[in-house]
């Protein structure tokens, strides 16, 4: 863990067990920090949603809840940017191969929406080549170039 208030940002590195519910070890502090840095409730909701999906994907789908594997998380929050990097110890996957859950024939599938929700609610979602690490970024509305 590292805090750097003098530079106007909050940073944290944390290693999570591959357990259901472990995401709260990250999201509780992350959401609190977003509030302290003045992010709106709507923006905090969006980050919460994306972070939850990424963390659950890493533990459940990436590490298959293997107690010997960990989820590595890096967070950085400032007044205009949140960056979250989530890396699991699984074999990785191809995010482009995830079927479009909004297609008529897949609309009623009970799963497969996590990656899409991350992409919809964040400004940048980028996986590494192996597919076991994802970087999520969101910019404050006021800091975007076309924001009024």
């Amino acid at each position, binding site marked *: 863990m590292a805090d750097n208030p003098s530079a106007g940002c909050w940073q944290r590195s944390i290693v999570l067990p591959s357990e*259901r519910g472990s995401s709260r070890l990250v999201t509780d502090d992350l959401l609190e920090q977003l509030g302290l840095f003045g992010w709106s409730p*709507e923006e905090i909701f*969006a980050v919460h949603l994306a972070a939850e*999906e990424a963390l659950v994907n890493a533990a459940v789908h990436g590490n298959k809840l293997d107690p010997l594997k960990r989820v590595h998380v890096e967070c950085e929050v400032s007044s205009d940017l949140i960056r979250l990097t989530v890396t699991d110890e699984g074999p990785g996957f191809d995010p482009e191969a995830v079927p479009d859950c909004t297609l008529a024939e897949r609309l009623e599938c009970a799963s497969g929406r996590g990656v899409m*929700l991350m992409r919809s609610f964040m400004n940048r979602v980028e996986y590494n080549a192996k597919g076991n690490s994802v970087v999520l970024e969101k910019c404050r509305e006021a800091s975007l170039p076309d924001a009024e």
Partner: protein
Amino acid sequence: MATHRRIDVTKTGDVSVVTFLDRKILDEAAIQELGAELFGLVEVDNRKAILLDFTGVEFLSSAALGKLITFDRKLKTAKGRLKMCGIAPGILEVFQVTKLNKVFDIRTEAAEALAAF
């Protein structure tokens, strides 16, 4: 009558109105429990008209969406009808992004939803 830990169920006419006891529906164990309680309304209690009132719910994850889809499917199979109301703007956006607003009958207010059964 089953005892519920995740939902509260009342009856308005023929419609069972379900409200949620959790503000945030994201914990995997809680979602499993929620699913079991919802499914029981159809499979055990044999209820046919169900309104899910999300008033007070601030967050739900995609795993919760999955349970709602399965619940809707079970209800349709039993020739029942499901409607939803009271959905917060952020959660409504989740339904819109995933196009689940085309799968579910979503109304703004409970009164409007009840009138539509």
